[in-house]
């Protein structure tokens, strides 16, 4: 599942973008603002799936009710140049949430320049793979931590959701 070019998802009563796939997901240059639920929800954490999710280019998530960017995968997660602000105030959610801790032990990478400030909570990563982050600014998140990186244990339970 590939979404290339520049993509804008704003002011929707649900999420701006919701992608569910059993295969690889690749999206670029996302702008998602003012959505009642997530800015962008990208999932390929379904039974049998092992592929990853790539969010490339410049990506901005502003003023969404739930997570600004939420990626849930059994494979590798890579995102770049993410700006997330004013997200999560409908449910104490995060500016950016990257989860692959129930998967194959693949890596999480956040590259480029990333500003995750002014959300309910800032950056959250759950992974049992290598986590590599670059140049993070996460300040002024008013209900949680700036960044919470949890990569500790094989004790995660395997509980795949349905697509």
């Amino acid at each position, binding site marked *: 599942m590939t979404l290339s070019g520049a993509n804008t998802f704003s002011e929707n009563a649900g999420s701006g973008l919701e992608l569910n796939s059993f295969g690889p997901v690749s999206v670029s240059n996302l702008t998602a603002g003012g959505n009642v639920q997530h800015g962008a929800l990208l999932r390929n954490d379904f039974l049998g799936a092992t592929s990853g999710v790539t969010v490339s280019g410049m990506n901005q998530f502003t003023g969404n009710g739930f997570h600004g960017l939420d990626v849930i995968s059994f494979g590798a997660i890579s995102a770049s140049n993410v700006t997330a602000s004013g997200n999560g105030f409908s449910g104490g959610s995060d500016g950016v949430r990257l989860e692959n801790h129930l998967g194959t032990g693949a890596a999480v990478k956040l590259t480029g320049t990333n500003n995750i400030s002014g959300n309910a909570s800032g950056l959250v990563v759950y992974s049992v793979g290598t986590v590599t982050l670059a140049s*993070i600014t996460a300040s*002024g998140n008013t209900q949680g931590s700036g960044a919470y990186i949890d990569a500790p244990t094989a004790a995660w339970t395997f509980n795949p959701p349905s697509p």
Partner: protein
Amino acid sequence: MDVQSAVTLTGTSIFNDNYVNGLLISTYGAVTLGSVSASNNGLGAGNGNGLDVANAAGTLARPVTLNGNYFLNGNEDQGLYLYSKGAVRSTT
């Protein structure tokens, strides 16, 4: 067997004025950090560290390496909290 997931943060990162912790890392693996500023965190919650790194819960001792410069001031609890069974190295 423990999963030994390394966490690496490169470049210069800033975590100021957050409700709880500035940056919290919990892993069984090695941790390597670049320059970090984390100040005035936890004031809203009444608890919170500027930089909190814990990798001591795994079976094996894994290092924590702090590269660059650190500005960890005015936090509600510790500026820097480390909990590790491995070597802790600071290289500036």
